[in-house]
């Protein structure tokens, strides 16, 4: 049982913001993906912290699901990156703007 969770939440926020900055500032698709994983981990951390704080299992279950979804997402995402790299020989996300209106 944890009595104080502010430090955990603060750490989670810092990691989350770092992930956000990584997504926005890096042009390397793999790096962006890693930043997304960082954000997910930060969210997981705060989920676990709150779960422990309230003495409830649900938060942990949710983290379990997040990890499972993340695994699926990484598998698909990396497959797409490989596919894009095959066709364009580049994983610079700035090159991928064919969808502009």
């Amino acid at each position: 049982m944890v009595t104080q969770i502010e430090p955990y939440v603060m750490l989670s926020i810092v990691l989350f913001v770092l992930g956000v900055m990584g997504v926005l500032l890096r042009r390397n698709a793999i790096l962006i993906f890693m930043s997304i994983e960082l954000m997910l981990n930060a969210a997981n951390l705060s989920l676990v912290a709150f779960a422990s704080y309230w003495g409830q299992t649900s938060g942990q279950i949710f983290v379990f699901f997040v990890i499972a979804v993340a695994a699926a997402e990484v598998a698909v995402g990396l497959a797409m990156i490989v596919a894009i790299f095959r066709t364009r020989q580049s994983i610079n996300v700035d090159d991928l703007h064919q969808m502009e209106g």
Partner: protein
Amino acid sequence: MENLGLLAPLVVLIPSIGAIINIFWGARLGEKWVGSIATIASALTFGVVVLLYVFMNYNYYQGVNVNPPVFESWINIPSAGLNIPWQQRVDSLSVTMMLIITGIGTLIHVYSIGYMHGDERYHRYFAFLNMFLAFMLVLVTANNYLVMFVGWEGVGLCSFLLIGFWFDRSGVAWRNSLAARKAFIMNRIGDFGVIMSMVLMFAVFGTLTYYEAGEVANPTYNEHLVEEIQHEAEAAEADLATGISEVTVGEVANAGEHTAAEPAPAEGQHAAPAEGEHETGPALPATSNDSIVYEDLGVFSRAQILSEQGGDVVVGPFTMPITTALTLITLFLLLGATGKSAQIPLFTWLPDAMAGPTPASALIHAATMVTAGVYIMVRSNVLFELTPTTMAVVALVGSATALVGGFIAMGQWDIKRVLAYSTVSQLGFMVAAVGVGAFGAAIFHLVTHAFFKALLFLASGSVIHGVEHGHHHVHEHGHDDEHDDHEEAFDPQDMRNMGGLRRRMPVTYFVYLIGTLALMGIFPLAGFWSKDEILADAWTAGLQDNNVIGYIVFGLLLVSAGFTAFYMWRQIVLVFHGKPRTEAAGHAPESAKMMLVPMLVLAFFSFFGGFMNTPRGVLGLEKIFGPHELTEWLESSVMRVHAGEFYLWIAILSLVVAIGMAIMANRIYARVPVFNRKRDPLEMMEATQQMWTMANARLYWDNFYDRIFVNPFRRTSAWLATELDDRFLHDWVHNKVLWNGFNAIAHFLSRDVDQKVVDGAVNGAGRVTRWGANTLRRSQSGYIRVYAITLLFGVVVVVLVLLLPLLQRG
């Protein structure tokens, strides 16, 4: 045996099937098949009715209700408390009617096979006949007024169809169609009465059913019956004890002999448990309705109870004494009866209805359908008995109709028209009998009249047939002569074109004579007994109840009996005696056997039919035929029937009147062998000229109706058609107001609203959308990071919005 009553639905079903077959496949089947199918259907129905008659005998004449399988709840609206089953009533009255309808119907079917031979709508005719039988049987077997009304309307329809059967015959097509229409419209006026009567009945009594299951129609009769049965049983036991093995069960329970081994009891009866030793035959009938609650009684018993209680009834917005309500109900029923049974004031359709084929006239407009009014009044005898006012009206209407019909018949030339007015007159006799409370006599006269009037019509058909054939014969042989005018003007029904047919058509003459004598009321033919009973009952009514109406009726009926003898003998003389007045009459052949056989059968019944109700004390005849058989038989279902007394002086008086008038007619018409073909001797005599003109002009009755109702109606409808409909509605409202107004509104809508406002809005929406899209598309750069930072921006905003209130609360 006790289940024979369940055959009742077949009575309606069999002729319906015949009609359906003939309607849909008749055209392909050919005359032989069509005629046989229709006739067999009719004969089968007659067979079923005979079985029903056997059942009635077995069941101590007690009526039963039969629920046909499919229609068990015909009209069932629980929320309105309305449950009218399609229920059939098999009792002595309805079986009597059924026997007449199917028996005479079958004979007329046979006759029609010959008579209608060669008609282009042969199958249709037989389909109509079968359909008529079905509806007529619905009418008489119904156990409530609504089902009865179905049959009532159905026979009206069939009557319309058959009167207008030759709606396209050259020269008379319009007359036939108009006659059909006239009959239909006149009957609708009567139907209004029936409907009003039913509505009132439902409002007052809450039911339309005649008798509920287990209800006793005539408790007094049943009491006597039970006593008699028990007495018989005791006597039989006593006989057994003394060693006499021959047991004769009394005439009331005579069916018991045949059914000694059959188990008890009949369905629908309140089983009054029989004595232990009396195990054969059906259970003894109940003797009263006291054990049945008001809600389980039929309309008649309810009427009796309410009438005994007195007091007021509430009918919709009106409150009236029960007597008033009953009087209204019966008066409306009388209106219906005057329509269907051709009484004053609605009788004028019946003579015109002779436009139809003669066998149809015989069946519908002489023997059966026109008696429906009498039947329904007899069926409602309880209601009529409760209302003396209506009874007086009925008596007066009936006797007046008898007089008027007889009078007009004396001045007609058309052979069928004479018979038609005779029918009106005889129906007047029946209605008058109802009016003086002689319900049994009314039915008795209905039965005998059905025999001899059907016979007369068939015979007249035979005469017409013969004259027509004779005319064709003459025409074929003498077509070199210039006879065109002659041919067009020739009317085979005009008695002036006949004469001397006695030698040409001996059988027809014979049966016609029997029919005429029966109708005149000559002893001992059928008409004598029935007419005499009506007269005697009228006299009794006057004598016993000190009722002036009875004497009036007696007088009027006696006079009309004289008229009857006169016009009928006039007809005999004009048609059969003397010498042929035209070549056609001279060459008329005797009709085919197919037509003669039914006439002979009917002649037999016209002769002997009266013995079914022989009064006591006439030459010991009742010992041969049994006294008052018909009355006793009817007593089980008609409450106020009573055996009429026999007055010798009345019988002699009426015989004298009839024979005297016949002799007078003979002297007037037979004296002049070949008189002026266009004019009647009476017309040429100063003293009788006016009277004869009145009779020939039918007392100006039709002209009166034309003046009062038809012409104003025509003028009104013409005015409505030209002025209101054409000028106002079509020319002004439709053309000016609606068309122009519509045009103006449409122009406004299309030019101003649609083109400017709607199109502008739609085009404007398109322009705005295009401009907005052009502006917004620039934001879609396609760079992921732009989308991501937009998302982040949103996240920050949402986080702030969510968290700031939390801050404040803290």
